[in-house]
């Protein structure tokens, strides 16, 4: 099965082949490297930019201003911060122009911890991102969703921030991407660039891919349950899956949010009203975390349904994620933290 990064790459290929996607660009996005995580390897329209994040975002806005579709990449979410006023502008362009200038652009960036990336390769951006009105924000947790969300993002007439959970980029999918060859070795041979001098004349041999969309704004119940709703996305979702695997005596309903904004409130609400307990997990720092908004809304709209206060597990409010594994695991939620919090919520119920 394809890895997540292969899924993203295939979606981008589908985009340039069928969806009039004209430009994919970023630092080292074009040949020979095709992206530091290889997400843009072998793509016809991928090109290298100067090492200038503001230029990348500005260029994406300028291309989209003409109505043409593009995908820009910021090499790591940690380096997106110096573009924040341009992100604000991209989000308000349609609103400020009273509906006259939509910006059909996608900005993708690897986000989050889990690869021992130290202070500047571990940061999350999701809670910052959802405050940028006018943007849509998505984050997949598996290769098939990564494929389907990218196709939806390319087709969306609004700016879409596509967060790639960097720790999951090499994780293999459980589900087949439509059109992907049966044998994963064959897929690798066809679309992964060889190392060394063989790369110079290499061209990918793309499989015949099909359109598959994961609608933006729609989450998914991945496992049904009765006692508690566990909500997450991206890498934290993956950890949630591990956390509940061997959990005895508690029946957990697991939701993969997939879209952070717009978010699937109907799904969340119907689930926590049934289970009457909720835990939301992500990696961004905890103060003014996006999950607090969801928890607040649960209290506002579901107070009398709840058996325990809705809980949020997120990154500690510290300036960075330290390199030593002891530091990293003390900073962003781990499998054992999720398990403990679930037990606590069950125990604390009235």
């Amino acid at each position, binding site marked *: 099965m394809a890895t997540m990064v292969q899924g993203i790459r295939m979606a981008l290929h589908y985009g340039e082949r069928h969806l009039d996607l004209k430009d994919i660009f970023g630092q080292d996005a074009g040949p020979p490297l095709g992206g530091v995580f290889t997400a843009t390897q072998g793509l016809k329209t991928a090109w290298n930019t100067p090492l200038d994040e503001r230029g990348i975002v500005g*260029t994406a806005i300028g291309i989209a201003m003409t109505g043409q579709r593009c995908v820009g990449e910021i090499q790591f979410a940690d380096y997106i911060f110096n573009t924040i006023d341009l992100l604000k502008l991209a989000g308000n362009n349609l609103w400020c122009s009273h509906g006259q200038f939509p910006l059909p652009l996608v900005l993708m960036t690897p986000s989050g911890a889990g690869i021992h990336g130290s202070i500047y390769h571990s940061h999350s951006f999701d809670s910052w991102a959802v405050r940028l009105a006018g943007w849509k924000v998505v984050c997949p947790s598996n290769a098939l969703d990564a494929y389907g969300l990218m196709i939806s993002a390319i087709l969306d*007439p609004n700016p879409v921030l596509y967060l790639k959970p960097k720790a999951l980029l090499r994780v293999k999918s459980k589900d087949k991407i439509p059109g992907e060859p049966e044998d994963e070795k064959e897929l690798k041979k066809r679309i992964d660039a060889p190392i060394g001098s063989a790369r110079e004349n290499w061209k990918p041999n793309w499989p015949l891919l099909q359109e598959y969309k994961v609608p933006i704004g729609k989450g998914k119940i991945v496992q049904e349950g009765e006692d508690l709703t566990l909500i997450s996305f991206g890498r934290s979702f993956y950890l949630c899956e591990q956390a509940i695997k061997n959990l005895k005596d508690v029946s957990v309903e697991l939701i993969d949010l997939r879209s952070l904004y717009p978010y699937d409130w109907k799904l969340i609400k119907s689930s926590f009203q049934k289970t009457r307990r909720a835990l939301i997990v992500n990696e961004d720092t905890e103060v003014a975390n996006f999950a607090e908004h969801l928890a607040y809304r649960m209290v506002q709209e579901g107070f009398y349904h709840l058996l325990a206060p809705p809980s949020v597990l997120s990154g500690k409010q510290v300036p960075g994620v330290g390199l030593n594994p002891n530091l990293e695991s003390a900073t962003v939620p781990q499998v054992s933290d999720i398990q403990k919090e679930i037990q606590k919520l069950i125990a604390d119920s009235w």
Partner: protein
Amino acid sequence: MTKQLSLSKEQLIKIYDLMVKARVTEERLIHIYKQGLGYFWIGGPGEEAFAVPLGLLIDKGRGINKDWLYLHYRGLPTLIAMGLSMKEAFRTVLNKATDQSSGGRNFVNHYSLPQWNVAPVTSVIGVQYSMAIGTAYAQSRTKDSKSLTVVTGGDAGSHEGDFATCLIWSSRPKKELPLLITVQNNQWGISTSYANQHGSKSIADRARAFQIESYVIDGNDPVESYHQLSQAIQNIRKNRRPVFIEAKVSRLYGHSSASGANYVKEEECCVKKFESFLIKEKLLTKKQSEEIWFNYKEEAKKTQREVMKEEDPQGNTIWNYIYDKGENADWRKF
């Protein structure tokens, strides 16, 4: 004043007429502000001699094969030259629902006009230099296109990183962009003087470092401006390479209403100067010039009265146009 009158009498009078129209429109905007009817004023009086010729040289229209404009908040004279009505200007200062550019959301002179490829003007200093490169890039890979992108800004704005971004991205080897980059140097950024902040002799020198053809011109001279802009624009249309122009201009009413919006008599007035020149050269009579001023002033008064009767935007419209095609962006309705 440049003597080489390769412009016809009609062209010279047309430029003068539009300069007066732009000036009268700006002065009426200031008046509206001072009447307490608008919340803020900022605009382009003092830049007409440069900005009107620029507007006249634009191949205006919609789409990639027409010119694109990334203007800053002093761009009104350019748009007047392109045909913008006084009405549209007054709608911005009075923040009316009828304001095409933003429906009363944005500041005065912050235009957004897709019919002429005028990208939304933003208050954020410098950012237009980063965005313009994307549009010029899209034009550069459009086969047989002669269209270009124009980006304008102020001298203090050239301190922002976006200005450097623009020089770097527009001059990449074999990927040069059809971009006209201008800086209207009025020697000020609010209260901070140009002289105190620039180690370089001119801003144009910075563009030269990237092999970008660069000029410093007298932006108070409409004839020189017309010629230089015309040459630059022809050059870009043909060679698909950037050109940089630094135009020395005046800031006739100070920075904005925040600094009083009062006439600064020490600054050179390009409209009066051009008018004296035309009268001296017998291309215009005193009486004709008085008539032009009078007619535009009357038009301005009448237009203000009309626009004041137009509707204000209502509070329940704030959720409109966050997402395209009417899609809801209010989380309460998710």
